[in-house]
């Protein structure tokens, strides 16, 4: 688990460096969200289960099966980008082989999709569980509420994840909702809601595992809120220093799951200096190799731009 948290962070940092160096147009990512994403994806069956991501789901997509190269191909908008062949902006993940649904930019639309996928799983008796993610800002959308209502009525096997970093770009939580947590809303739809500290990776794993088992047993959806720090700006086009104080940023960094998880693992003796160094080296190698590989991949040709408007046959 720690490896994936570290890999996702290193990939995240590399994407920002590449953007600043002019190698990528745009970055949107999830620094601070990795711990809960890795933990939540952990109980999921990588082949059987579905994931409907959002733009911060870097770590979750890695655990589900995408590689750092896959994600960097998207960053560079290469023809071989598995999410969209370079058609979408970076951060719009999708991968049929790992049952990661293609995603768009309007916030909230993915929630009904996840519920529809889960309904189909139930009807077809496939045993699949679906996980869908969103930020707390997205929970203001009608689609989010409509999806929860539908999922609860039909007891759809879906894990409804909200990664609450208390900022929708710049808008703080108190202007987004009058309730103190997203999870309390679950009661209004007739499903359990739970909040976990996103910096406590094992706690995130525990609550997700429980919800996963509930879904498997046919007992329906669970709303899971992870309280996470947003370590960086919203995207590469945003400067969070304009609306977040130095004190706030200092406080937020203390909640960095990479640091809290590492400290925990060291404390209980599961991570030694040696294994940490090995892992750090492995992550760096993987990111370097992936960057080179993705950078060498060809750009899409203009004559392919009219393809795949409609079905073209097998």
């Amino acid at each position, binding site marked *: 688990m720690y490896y994936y948290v570290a890999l996702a962070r290193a990939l995240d940092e590399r994407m920002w460096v590449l953007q600043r160096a002019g190698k990528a147009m745009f970055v949107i990512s999830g620094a601070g969200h990795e711990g809960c994403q890795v933990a939540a994806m952990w109980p999921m069956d990588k082949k059987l289960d579905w994931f409907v991501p959002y733009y911060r789901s870097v770590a979750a997509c890695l655990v589900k099966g995408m590689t750092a190269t896959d994600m960097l191909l998207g960053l560079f908008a290469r023809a071989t980008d598995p999410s969209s062949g370079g058609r979408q902006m970076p951060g719009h993940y999708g991968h049929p082989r790992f049952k990661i*649904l293609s995603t768009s930019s*309007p916030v909230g639309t993915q929630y009904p*999709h996840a519920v529809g996928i889960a309904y189909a*799983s139930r009807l077809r008796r496939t045993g699949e569980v679906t996980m869908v993610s969103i930020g707390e800002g997205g929970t203001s959308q009608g*689609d989010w509420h409509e999806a929860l209502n539908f999922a609860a009525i039909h007891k759809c096997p879906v894990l409804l994840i909200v990664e609450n970093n208390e900022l929708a770009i710049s808008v703080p939580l108190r202007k987004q909702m009058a309730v103190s947590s997203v999870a309390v809303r679950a009661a209004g739809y007739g499903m359990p809601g739970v909040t976990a500290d996103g910096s406590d990776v094992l706690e995130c794993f525990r609550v997700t595992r429980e919800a996963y088992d509930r879904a498997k047993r046919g007992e329906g959806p669970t709303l899971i809120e992870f309280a996470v720090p947003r370590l960086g700006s919203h995207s590469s086009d945003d400067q969070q220093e304009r609306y977040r104080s130095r004190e706030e940023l200092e406080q937020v960094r203390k909640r960095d799951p990479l640091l809290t998880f590492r400290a925990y693992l060291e404390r209980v003796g599961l991570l030694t200096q040696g294994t940490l160094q090995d892992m750090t080296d492995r992550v760096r190698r993987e990111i370097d190799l992936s960057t080179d590989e993705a950078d060498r991949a060809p750009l899409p040709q203009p004559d392919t731009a009219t393809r795949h408007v409609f079905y073209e046959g097998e």
Partner: protein
Amino acid sequence: MAEIRYIDAINQAHHEEMARDARVLVLGEDVGRKGGVFGATMGLVEKFGEDRVIDTPLAESSIAGVAIGMAANGLLPIAEFQFADFIHPAFNQIVSEAARMRYRSNGLYGCPVVFRAPYGGSHGTALYHSQSIEAFYAHVPGLKVVAPSTPYDAKGMLKAAIRDPDPVMFLEHKRMYRIVRGEVPDGDYTVPIGPAVVRRQGRDLSLFAYGWMLNESLAAAESVAAEGIDVEVTDVRTLAPLDTDTILTSVAKTNRALIVYEDNLFLGYGAEIAARIAEAAFFDLDAPVTRLAGPDVPGIPFAKPLEEWFSITKDKIATAIRKLAAY
């Protein structure tokens, strides 16, 4: 071969496709035990059960959004919108999601959803139960939009839409439901999405219409025939992708073009037909390309005199035909 009503054709297509393929299901408001407010889904829940005939909450965006998710996971949903007027909350799901799913995933994900919507007015249903929505959706690449005008086409095209691997907006002018009747064969058949069809051959003028307007136009064509004006009437039953060739062939024959649609005139669907004729058939034309459409007000008003003022009837069409024929 039996003569049935338009609504019965729609209902039969549902029954036959759901029996034929277990992946087909219906979701929408009142589609279950009521059988739909117009009866399109009558008898389905009794035969196929509540899991495949879903009475949804009153929330159009999730009707579309949930259907898109179902389609991603192996089902073939038919999403019914009770009235086209209430489809607007689902615009984002249909336009941003359904229509773009295949393109944005570079062909890896499809979206085989049928969005059914009863549209159109001129029968006492006013601003919010009368709208024509075809122009909004026909504008969007990645969506197919159809508006059949006969029971035969309604059944055959709905079956084709359900079997189509891409999203189809299936528009039913609700005035036709109970008054338009026609022959429909007993066995299985489909009518392909794409080709337009010439419903009436003529020499003097080409008229293009779809849905209820096609029926009014045919009646108008008959009424002017006695005056010696021979109108060729083409049923543009697939609005997107548009069968431009059939349109241009007709214009080349008659040298005059009249486009009839019930939506308000400005940027309505007929504007695209007019533009294509103007661009590709300029030297075939003996008269200006002409549109007859609703006035540019925000909706069809309720009171009878106001509704009559708005409505495109066979008499108004006949007047437009005479004027264009005499040009």
